[in-house]
């Protein structure tokens, strides 16, 4: 429901997407299945894109902007935002829901985009992929930085419809991003005495 309300400009149809859509509608292609291989290819693509961004040597401000766009394209932000906020999301007005999703995107990109640089020069290798419930896969990768013990990075991906994978959660050495942010957002909302509008303002100011 929130997806259709999304104000995110990266989802606006470009000419290329419209043409591709037109092509798809003309050809009687079967709906692609969501498989282990699809998920793994998707994550490998993410890894390549992320490493290319980090190692591009571009200035941090530019990287951050790129990261915001990238994040919105590969992850289901409205879904993540909803999962993070939990029950208060359901009782919020449509405008508040939209406001929260946008504010959450800003907050996440700035919080984690800044840490990106630390992974310069590292390599990320997919180790294995396991089913993680209905239409979901967990792709496990190993991050190696020169001279250090590797750490485990898990990518929890799911079928967003028609076999198109999107990212839902990231798991670093067992620590799940969504559940960490759920606690964080809950604590912020508590500090704002349950006022969702003030939480949104606080996230936008991050």
């Amino acid at each position, binding site marked *: 429901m929130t997806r259709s309300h999304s104000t995110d400009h990266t989802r606006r149809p470009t000419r290329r997407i419209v043409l591709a859509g037109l092509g798809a509608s003309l050809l009687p292609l079967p709906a692609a299945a969501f498989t282990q291989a699809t998920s793994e290819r998707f994550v490998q693509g993410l890894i390549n894109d992320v490493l290319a961004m980090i190692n591009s040597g571009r200035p941090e401000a530019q990287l951050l902007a790129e990261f915001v766009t990238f994040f919105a394209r590969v992850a289901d932000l409205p879904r993540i935002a909803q999962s993070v906020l939990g029950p208060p999301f359901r009782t919020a007005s449509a405008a508040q829901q939209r406001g929260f999703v946008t504010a959450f995107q800003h907050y996440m990109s700035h919080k984690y985009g800044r840490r990106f640089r630390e992974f310069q020069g590292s390599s990320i290798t997919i180790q294995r992929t396991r089913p993680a419930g209905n239409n979901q896969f967990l792709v496990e990768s190993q991050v190696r930085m020169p001279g250090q013990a590797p750490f485990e990075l898990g990518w929890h991906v799911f079928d967003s419809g028609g076999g198109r994978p999107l990212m839902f959660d990231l798991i670093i050495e067992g620590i799940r991003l969504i559940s*960490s942010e759920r606690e964080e957002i809950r604590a912020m909302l508590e500090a704002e005495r349950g006022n969702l509008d003030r939480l949104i303002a606080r996230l936008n100011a991050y």
Partner: protein
Amino acid sequence: MFRAPRIPGLMALGLVAVLTAGCAGGPVAEGAINDPFEATNRQIHAFNKSVDSAILRPVARTYGAVVPAPLREMIENGASNLSEPRYFVNHVLQGDPDAAAATLGRFLLNSTLGILGLGDPATNIGLFQRPTDFGETLGAWGAPEGAYVELPLLGPSTVRDTIGMVVDLAIDPVTHIVTEEQAYYLFALRSLNLVNSRHAYADLIDLLLYESADSYTAQRLTYLQNKRRALAGEIVVEDLDDPFAFN
């Protein structure tokens, strides 16, 4: 004064049995957070944070500014190498011969080619450190995690990991072979390495302790999820959040 009490192994195990039995409450759901002492834990957390901001953080900053990077690396390697015998014992007790062999290999290689463990050639050839502790051994033996506790100065733990920490002191081969005088150097090296770690992970620790909306719950979740993954040996798929929960 700083030496670990030499509790005979069997006595230590007896202690574990008694303490675990004493702490066994009702069953706690998998993946849930069991924190009946939250009020006390929060007080200790506030105390630990004040110690960090008043002493450990400033000391670590000065340390980072004064001690050159190669020396810092040697301190870390040296302290870390002396942890390997303890890891080895625990891997054996957990029935994990692969990890035990890798740990032994690392210790032998780093203690010789690495010059008393000051270098870490093992990591360079892909023989990575496999840290573990007696808390994990207890878990592997089926002991329940127990309540979450935050310990004064020592930080986040669980009942199981606290017992494990005590037992680790007792069964650590290193504390059994060092002389009275060497024990002081060992204590000094480990203290220095604590400062070293506070400096090396400053960004992450500061983020967790000083930028979280609630540093107590942030640290609790980080600790428990990381430990549970270590015990399971892999990410527990059943614990993952459901993307379709709100459909």
